[in-house]
């Protein structure tokens, strides 16, 4: 079974994000970029499937500018076998990503596609679902546990509002990861060195026959309003009063 993992290059989670002066987006020049943490979890899961004898090959796919290759290298250093880079400088939105991934899936024919449940930059939480729809595959989102069964199905435990839900899904499957699925490993030194020698295939949206042009237009990006200082209440009674009459939450 081939496993395809999508990896997105995003602003590193440690960076304090700043809005650009002209309000068109967030500042990304000279900002540390890393793999989307949910995608790291995806790579880890795929590599574990391979180590556990369930997967034969792990392919890491990234879409975007040249620097996305660094993100693919990170996945290769964690244990993915090869990479695919769809090169484009166009702003990519979830639908375009889903279409591009579909084209790659058609080409590679994996049985399992793992995506993060969302990317920490735009928090869209759409791509996996769209991809499943475009492929007409099963989908299992917000996975916190994955078991591949011998009979062409997989049991996926999902984190839902009420707790945990376990579903059985037919392969081929699109799965999106949640935080508790696993704890991604550190890339080992030998694997970092090996990653350099693993192949990364270069593709373009044109070659895949996909028009990635954005459909949504960002009007304005602004900083969230500053939080106002809190007040100290003198008694429980006062707290209850404020909650009831000022905040109107009880």
């Amino acid at each position, binding site marked *: 079974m081939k496993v395809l993992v999508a990896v997105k290059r995003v602003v590193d989670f440690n960076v304090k994000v700043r809005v650009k002066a002209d309000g068109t987006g967030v500042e990304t020049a000279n900002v540390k970029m890393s793999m989307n943490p949910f995608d790291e979890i995806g790579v880890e899961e795929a590599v574990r499937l391979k180590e556990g004898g369930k997967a034969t090959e792990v392919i890491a796919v990234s879409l975007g500018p040249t620097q996305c290759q660094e993100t693919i290298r990170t996945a290769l250093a964690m244990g993915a076998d090869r990479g695919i880079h769809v090169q484009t400088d166009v702003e990519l939105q979830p639908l375009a990503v889903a279409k591009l991934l579909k084209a790659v899936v058609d080409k590679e024919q994996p049985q399992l596609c793992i995506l993060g449940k969302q990317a920490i930059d735009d928090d869209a939480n759409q791509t996996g679902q769209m991809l499943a729809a475009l492929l007409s595959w099963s989908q299992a989102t917000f996975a916190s546990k994955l078991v591949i069964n011998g009979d062409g199905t997989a049991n996926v435990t999902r984190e839902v509002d009420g707790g945990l839900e376990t579903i059985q899904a037919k392969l081929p499957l699109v799965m999106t990861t949640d935080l508790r699925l696993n704890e991604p490993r*550190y890339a080992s030194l*030998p694997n970092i060195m090996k990653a*350099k020698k693993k192949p990364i295939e270069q593709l373009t949206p044109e070659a895949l026959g996909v028009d990635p042009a954005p459909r949504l237009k960002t009007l304005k990006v602004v900083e969230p309003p500053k939080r106002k200082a809190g007040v100290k209440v003198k008694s429980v009674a006062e707290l209850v009063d404020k909650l009831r009459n000022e905040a109107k939450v009880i």
Partner: protein
Amino acid sequence: MPTYTAPLDDMRFVLFELLGADKLAELPGFGDATQDVVEAVLEEAGKFAANELQPINHSGDEEGCHYENGTVTTPKGFKEAYAKFIEGGWTGLPCDPEFGGQGLPKVVNFAVEEMICSANLSFGMYPGLSNGAYNALALHGTSEQKATYLPKLVAGTWSGTMCLTEPHCGTDLGLIKTRAEPDADGSYKITGTKIFISAGEHDLTDNIVHLVLARLPDAPAGIRGISLFVCPKFIPNTSGEAGPRNAVRCGSIEHKMGIKASATCVMNFDGATAWLVGQPNKGMSAMFTMMNAARLAVGMQGLGIAEAAYQGAVMYAKDRLQMRALSGAKFPDKPADPIIVHPDVRRMLLTMRALTEGCRAVSYWVGMELDISRHHPDEKRRQEADDLVALLTPVVKAFLTDHGFHAANLGVQVFGGHGYIREWGMEQLVRDARITQIYEGTNGIQGLDLVGRKLSLGMGRLLRRFFHPVGAYLEAAAEKPEMVEFALPSMKAFAKLQQATAWLAQAGLKNPEEAGAAATDYLRLFALVALAYMWCRMAEIALRKQAGEKAPFYEAKLVCARFFMTRLLPETNTLFATLTSGSQTLMALPAEAF
């Protein structure tokens, strides 16, 4: 509690913009060490240091190592962290691929060591000592010894030690008493007591490989009668795994000022089986070839501590509100200004930073030359590099560790009273840093090595490897108007160093005591000139790039360069004055008058 973020931007700057480390990949054997690979390695090492090693630094200090009945337990979390460390293959970074290593350049290992030591100096001792043992065996072991020990040391499943010190001798190893009696089968039986043996006993690995200095029965007295032996805790069996227990045991561990999570052991050898490494009676020279590497590694410990102290201090200085800026409130909406507005706090922060960044540049430069000395195809270039490394090794060891301690102290000062309180973690850095000035040859001994050995080697050949390029560079730099503010003070300091060297040569001829009296000041003067040279070159790059994308980085470099030139480099004047005052005042008082 201070957090740590690996200073990857500065490391990249020093490696690739200042030193041209991307060229290392062109050297035979370093084909894999391309810039992208090195950057990926540093990034991952930085993550490991920050996320796995730093979190157990303070707890390791509080808990310390425990001794019971010959066994030593490391503090909570060390075993797990070490297991992850070797699983990641980090122990093999600079080692020969023939034995399972990655064969990456030493300078890359320097950077990784710096990060490990910033995060957790005690932890770094265990792989550090193993690397020392690896070097000794790789350079002097028989092919059988190499095949037995090196793959295990590279994999980190076995660790190493260096057993030199005895109760009555540390600096003067000629006094060593530990004996080695030959056995019929070609092995030896070692008997004696070694003290202060780092990583002598612990619970991290399956076996411990001791490299021991001892005396053969017919050995001449003194330093020329010392031989080197390999003495494993468990004797390897025919399949190469740890076999029968050897008669070397840990008698106790020391209770000490710092690096409390590093076991410092009394090791008793009671007829322990061992094998000769290298030639009989040539143990000291065998030891010295690896000791140079170890001294540089201790220098990196100093640098690591300094960086950690700086990061802690900066975080606190931006956060702690106390008094108003002298020029008027800078944060009127807050009850007081953060202490980073105060000139004296800035003096401390900038002193830490300018010296730390300067030390990083000098030590990585030496690391690069170390790689060139081993891998360059041109013999002449190899020799030049080797000379420079030999010359600057004592400078790196002593100056970086002095700086580490000094920076840790400044870190405490920036924290005020909270710096003195254990839970903030700043006083630990002071205690941990203190040992680096003592082991691997005290810093006083480093001064003697520089003045007594390195200056005179090859009629000053080593010195010329430094003086010529530095002199030529500074002269050329002084011609460029924008470089004058950096080149001029550096030239003055360099002239002082040249004068001091000439003075030393003359005075030392008349009275050997003069060299000893001048050594420590001379080494410091030397180091400051080496830093000045590096700061000039860094400033030159920053001037060129300050208008570009990463302007704030280069602007900060220039500010630090100016701070170094105007506020730190003038110390060279004092050093010159004190050292040329001669030994007279030092030697005048008879011992009984003290």
